[in-house]
């Protein structure tokens, strides 16, 4: 499109926004100038206008007179049943506490299990030390480098 003229292809692309009054002033002027001298594009514009006119004739039913009542009733019900303010805060804290307790229980159980599976070597060493301390033969063995 040059600064002041356009061809039919360009004009036809712009006819819908032209009809909808969505074109900027300068572009609108250029389209208008083209339409003034182009019967084919004028006919296309009229066809578009006719289509819109047909669409406008398609009616819809009336909305139910009870819609507003139903909307407001639902809103009031949701407000009534939703936790409000301090009650909502208490619920959040209770939920956080439950999570913390669950984690704590898990850690506690984990520690208990670790003690059940104490390495054998530690117990054997203590048992061996106890035997040596309480056994004369054991002391002599150690002095002599025995097992």
């Amino acid at each position, binding site marked *: 499109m040059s600064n002041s003229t356009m061809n039919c292809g360009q004009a036809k692309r712009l006819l*819908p926004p032209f009809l909808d009054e969505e074109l900027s002033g300068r572009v609108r002027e250029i389209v208008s100038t083209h339409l003034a001298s182009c019967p084919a594009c004028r006919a296309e514009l009229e066809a578009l206008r006719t289509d819109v006119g047909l669409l406008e004739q398609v009616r819809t039913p009336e*909305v139910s007179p009870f*819609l507003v009542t139903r*909307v*407001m009733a639902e809103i009031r019900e949701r407000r009534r049943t939703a936790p409000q303010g301090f009650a909502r805060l208490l619920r959040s804290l209770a939920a956080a506490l439950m999570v913390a307790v669950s984690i704590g229980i898990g850690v506690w159980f984990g520690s208990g299990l670790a003690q059940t599976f104490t390495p054998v070597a530690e117990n054997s060493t203590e048992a061996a030390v106890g035997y040596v301390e309480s056994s004369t033969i054991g002391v002599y063995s150690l002095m002599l480098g025995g097992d």
Partner: protein
Amino acid sequence: MAAFEELVRRHQQGLFSYLYRMCRNSSDAEETAQAAMVRAWEKLATFRGASSFKTWLYRIGTNLCLNLRMRRKPTEELCETMAAPDVERPDAEYRQKVREETVRRALECLPDDQRAALVLLVYEDMSYKEIAETLGKTVRAVDSLLFRAKANVRKALAEDRAKGVI
């Protein structure tokens, strides 16, 4: 609450009509309109006034309607060829009814986004900018949607025009 109720009263018919053309039946349109208004109430704190309340409300309605359509299988294929109307009947009321049904069918056969844009333009008198806000698109995208929508409506009506139905 009283102020919100007033907003509901002001927008109920427009919203319902828009959703009727999108959902294709009254009960879905009413259900969606009600859900949209309740959702708007719940999200009122997030409405920052960047768009008008109407475009914001219609956007909620559009999303709910499209979600509903995705979840449901259509019970009727509305884009199939209807039985040929009796174009010889002289009574004006019948002919008007046929014309209306024909055009309604052409509109309902459009893809959802094209139909939404065209309905908002023709019936809600929205600007391209308002349509863009409602549908969450750019103005350029709306311009493209409307161009294709009008071309598709023309194409859908061409055969009926040739038969003299419209």
